[in-house]
């Protein structure tokens, strides 16, 4: 296998990626493109980023050998505990990186979009930390189903604006954030929360999240005497936690990468967010990727029980991992995810975010050898999803 999972100089992973943006955003995105690698490689930047990850976020997060779960699955299962990060999910790794970048680009204001609210909370948090103005766009329906996160953002000093168009969820929040950015292109940095959007966002976010697989390698070496697991499993909405968990393993073909998508009520039910199963090549929110759309190119409204996964596309890196068959993509239905989340709670005393439950459900669908080392990226904690668990019942 060729080692071609890095973005090329035009911002493409294979045939996916690019920067499909209105001219009004060109100077801003171009400035970011020219500057981001240099800034991220600057030793001073790195030191500040690492210091905040350690002392503010609480990294490294544990790599926990889940013994009771392992016994049930029939493999050696480790959980990468991103749920133990400050703010409760992996999202903060990226927002810490981007807020430091925004400061170096002399931006004064921050905008973001959020689905489940985890990225919004992580953005509001770093804006409070740095004393920067923050506006978060969130679908009106998501604001309703993720109320605690809306209030957390407000307590942190952010303004939460409702996106009222379309399905009133993440896709529409992203549209509104892009519109805001088009109207305020000079003083505003848009902290995109996943590995989506125009180049260089997918690459930049993947690099900020790559701390996850970097730590996994070190921790596995300590605990197992080898850097590489047999499997890495992570859920994919846009795909930032999966990009981070896969990052240092993409060019190691002996490590099997498994991405789980939200099947919703079933891939063929018309109520799904399983992009690789139902999507085809298209352009949305600044990049060419796999996209759920009609024959005429209109974006199809996605559905998932998880507000963090109901996005109609995936990041271009993931589209490339799928297209090149480097990663296996599985669809996990709502009930399979909920059952997996409840199972983890009972076996290990960890209530996972419903997003992460989609990754855990893969354990039930796959066949392992007893000696296999499987790492599941537990991207976030379930506090925000209690209402969803309660409504589901069955515990």
């Amino acid at each position, binding site marked *: 296998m060729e080692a071609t999972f890095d973005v090329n100089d035009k911002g493409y992973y294979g045939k996916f990626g690019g920067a499909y943006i209105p001219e009004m955003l060109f100077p801003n995105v171009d400035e970011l493109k020219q500057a981001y690698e240099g800034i991220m490689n600057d030793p001073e930047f790195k030191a500040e980023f690492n210091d905040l990850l350690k002392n503010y976020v609480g990294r490294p997060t544990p790599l926990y050998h889940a013994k009771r779960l392992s016994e049930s699955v029939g493999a050696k299962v480790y959980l990468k505990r991103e749920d133990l990060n400050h703010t409760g999910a992996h999202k903060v790794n990226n927002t810490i990186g981007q807020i430091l970048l925004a400061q170096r680009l002399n931006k004064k204001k921050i905008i973001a979009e959020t689905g489940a609210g985890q990225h919004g909370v992580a953005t509001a948090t770093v804006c409070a930390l740095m004393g920067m103005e923050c506006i978060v766009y969130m679908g009106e329906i998501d604001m309703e189903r993720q109320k605690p996160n809306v209030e957390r953002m407000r307590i942190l000093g952010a303004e939460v604006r409702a996106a009222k*168009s379309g399905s009133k969820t993440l896709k529409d929040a992203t549209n509104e954030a892009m519109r805001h950015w088009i109207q305020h292109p000079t003083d505003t940095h848009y902290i995109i929360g996943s590995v989506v959007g125009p180049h260089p966002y997918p690459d930049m976010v993947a690099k900020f999240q790559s701390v996850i697989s970097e730590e996994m390698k070190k921790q596995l070496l300590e605990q197992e005497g080898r850097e590489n697991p047999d499997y890495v499993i992570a859920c994919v909405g846009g795909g930032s936690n999966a990009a981070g968990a896969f990052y240092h393993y993409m060019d190691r073909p002996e490590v099997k990468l498994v991405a789980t998508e939200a099947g919703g009520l079933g891939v063929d039910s018309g109520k799904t967010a399983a992009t690789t199963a139902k999507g085809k090549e*298209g352009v949305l929110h600044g990049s060419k990727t796999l996209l759920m759309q009609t024959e005429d*190119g209109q974006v199809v409204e996605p559905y998932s029980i998880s507000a963090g996964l109901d996005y109609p596309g995936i990041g271009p890196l993931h589209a490339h991992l799928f297209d090149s068959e480097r990663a296996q993509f599985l669809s996990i239905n709502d009930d399979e995810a909920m059952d997996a989340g409840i199972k983890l709670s009972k076996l290990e005393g960890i209530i996972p975010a419903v997003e992460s439950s989609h990754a855990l459900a893969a354990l039930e669908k796959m066949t392992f050898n007893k000696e296999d080392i499987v790492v599941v990226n537990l991207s976030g904690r379930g506090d925000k999803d209690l209402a969803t668990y309660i409504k589901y019942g069955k515990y």
Partner: protein
Amino acid sequence: MNRIKSAFSDNKSPLLNVYFTAGYPNLNDTRTVLEALDQSGADLIEIGVPFSDPVADGPVIQASNDQALKNGMSMKVLFEQLEGMRETVKVPVILMGYINVVLQFGVEEFCKACQRVGVDGVIFPDLPLATFVEDYKATFDAYGVANIFLISPQTTEDRIRLIDEKSDAFIYMVSDAGTTGARKGISDAQLSYFERIQAMKLKNPRMIGFGISDADSFQTATNYAEGAIIGSAFVNAITAGKDDIPTAVASFVKAVKQ
């Protein structure tokens, strides 16, 4: 293409380009609006191809896009509706839309259909210049379809020169940072931007769009460019006048051009 060039060379007075959304307010209103605009004195006509996620547009145009999609509009239906339009419509016709819809239709099929029905140019706000030049320009050129590019107050001089070099219709000057329909009136900062671009002596004519809504803003803008583009205000006008579209269109154009 030639129709766009002729429009600029024939006319001494400022040109009015009017945008409307295909299939709005009703699916079969496209030709009614188009022909009424042609007869009322619009100098160029921009037909919006509706898209589910029009991020460069404001709420008025987005709402018209949503309604048009609900009505059943698609690229295929639009080309069927435009079949034979050149028997009646004389002015240049431009399609404005988002690139995903064209990619799904097929770029070459799209260009072929434009040539067949007599569409002269296209505007895709989310198709960057470099991608167009590398991947699509040859196809568009082969079918004589001009691609019109936007510039904004933030566009650098070098890039404006590059866009001017790659263009052969007109330059679409976005009047200020913003989506369509976001602003009313013209500020001093905008005037100095207009003057700056005017002083660059570009080879292509310029049309100013975004924030142009009435006779005042049209006249102010066209002191600094060959013409101006009105979108949201016109969509509002046909929403209000949907029971008698020809009259609504005629009175709108008359009021702007005075």
